[in-house]
């Protein structure tokens, strides 16, 4: 476990700034701070300029998600799980997930207010980068 964690930290340092939080070009959201993104992904912030926000996660075992949770949310997986268990009883569900960056891209393209994260190299013209991590 320690080895895995050390490896993860090394990768984290090595690949810092290679991932971005994106939304669609037609989205009214132009820029988001790290804390705003955290609030959105923890579903504490649901609207932005009357636009309902829809955070999208990658699958739990996806390495970008692990980097996102570590760098942007600043929370360990256990803490996140505990958090969503608690929110479950308040009727609040975790963000939806997409398996691949392609489906994530397609989703962001088709759903207004949706926000996702992916590798910087996979960003296309229909996306607007809101935050890099």
């Amino acid at each position, binding site marked *: 476990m320690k080895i895995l964690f050390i490896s993860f930290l090394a990768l984290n340092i090595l690949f810092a700034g290679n991932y971005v939080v994106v939304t669609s070009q037609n989205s009214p959201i132009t820029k988001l701070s790290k804390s705003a993104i955290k609030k959105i992904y923890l579903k504490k912030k649901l609207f932005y300029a009357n636009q*309902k926000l*829809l955070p999208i996660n990658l699958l739990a075992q996806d390495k970008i998600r692990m980097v996102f949770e570590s760098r942007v949310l600043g929370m360990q997986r256990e803490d996140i799980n505990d958090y969503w268990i608690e929110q479950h009883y308040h009727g609040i*569900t975790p963000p*939806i*997930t*997409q*398996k*691949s960056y*392609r*489906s*994530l891209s*397609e*989703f962001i393209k*088709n*759903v207004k207010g949706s926000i996702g994260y992916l590798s910087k190299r996979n960003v296309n013209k229909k996306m607007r980068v809101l935050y890099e991590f």
Partner: protein
Amino acid sequence: MSFKLKTITLFLITSLIPSLLIIFYVIYETKEKVITEISQDLSFDVKLVSSRLDNQIKVVYKDFIFISKLDIMDDIISADMDRRVTNLLIRKKEDMELVGDFFIVNLKNKTVASSNPKILGKDANLTSLDAHIFKTDIIATFNNEKIGTFYLLYSYENFKKNLKTKDGQGVYLYDKKRDKNIFKSVDFSDSLTKSKTLTTLDNLDLYITIDKKSSLTPYNEFLFILFLSALVGIFLISLVSIYFASKITKPINTLSKTAILISDTKNYSQRVDISSKDEIGILAKAFNRLIVSIEEALQKLEVENSQKLKLIEEKSKNEMFESLARKLSKYLSPQIYDSIFEGKQDVVLESKRKKLTIFFSDIVGFTDTTESMESEDLSEILNHYLNEMSIIALNHGATIDKFIGDAILIFFGDPKSKGIKEDAINCIKMSLEMIKKIEELEGYWQDRGITKPFRVRIGIHTGFCTVGNFGSDERMDYTIIGGTVNTASRIESKANPNEIWISEETYLLIKSDIECQKQEPIIAKGISKPIEIYKVIGYVSDNKKYFVVDNTLDGLAIKNSKIEIGDRKEAIKSLENLLDEIKKR
């Protein structure tokens, strides 16, 4: 019809009527009930199967809806690029062993996910199939907006597993929209059918049909068993009936056989041996008692009959004896008759010496008088004479010994005797009455052609003689023998007509009562000494005397010659007057 047959018939009728009624009831009533029952069973089966189908559809629909609401359905937005939904549907199809397919079309009617990957990216083809299409909108989990449509093409084949029912039943579905029977494999000519519209799919009617004939097979088998049981029952009842009828009628037969045997053989010692304590036993006891009574009555009757027969025989014998005695009485003197029949004198060859008064009479010139007469007339005249004499003799207690032609032998003193003297007087009295009677009968005989009147000689002698039965054991006569009899006969032969001559022995006995006139002694053949003779004149009395006038007086005829003299002087005077009268004439 015999009692046995009647009993068997009664048994059969009483036992078979309920059985036959049950059989007929079963035949005419149970069949409808069975059909109703089968129909109800069919209705129940239809409900059951339709319920199973409805439950199946509900479960499928529930799963269908459940799937449609999964978060993963949000992938429709990204056209299921990661094929997460498609994979899910494939697994679900496999799990459900589904015949048919799930498929999801997006808002552009493009198939974006399906359990059949071959149709991905194609337009949804919902052409008519033997299937039901479930349809629901897919709503995005995050904004409740429709992001696509979820279809389930549910083949009717899926119903097959729940369309199973009992053997002999045909189950099929009818699609009302398409007017088509589904899974219909049998078509019975005569069937019972029940149907029900599925609650969950109102275009489908479930039909369950059954062949009426085959459905009634258990009923027909039951009927067969029933008839077989009835036949066996009839057979057993018949056996039982015959057994009990025989048991009942056996004592009756025994009773009747015994009655016939008694009737044929007249053997009243026969008894019926029936020990049962029922009514037959009581009847047998009563019968035995009756036979005992009859036997006793017969025995009593037999004894009485025997006694009566003896009485009748005795009576008959008595009557015969009486008849015989009456006949004999004509041949015997009443004294002898009475003496014999009163048992005072046995009919045996025995005799005794006894002093008797013997009477002999004879009609004077009887042969000359009657020689010109026919024998019938002679018999009548003689019999009349003897009869009249006999009456007089019997009236005086005489014993008539015998008639010898016109002669009569009579004696006094045996078997009854009033004493020697009284017997002798009675003999004289009898003789006087006989003379008188002969004179009286003179006119009667003249009317019968006897021109010369009868005149009799009478001789009487008293002495010892032997009296009794003489002859052989086979033939005997009660008579008297001895010299005394001969003497009486000789006196009679010497007597004058219509005179009564008596010997001195007799005279000495009667002289105080009878007036007699001494005659010349007679010499009789065989008698050594002359016999002293007296002629009877009449009775000796105070005022009355009898005398006999001889009618042979010259120039004078006196009829009815007995003259009674009351007063002697008056009599002489009357005769003198008569003499004067004659002289005058």
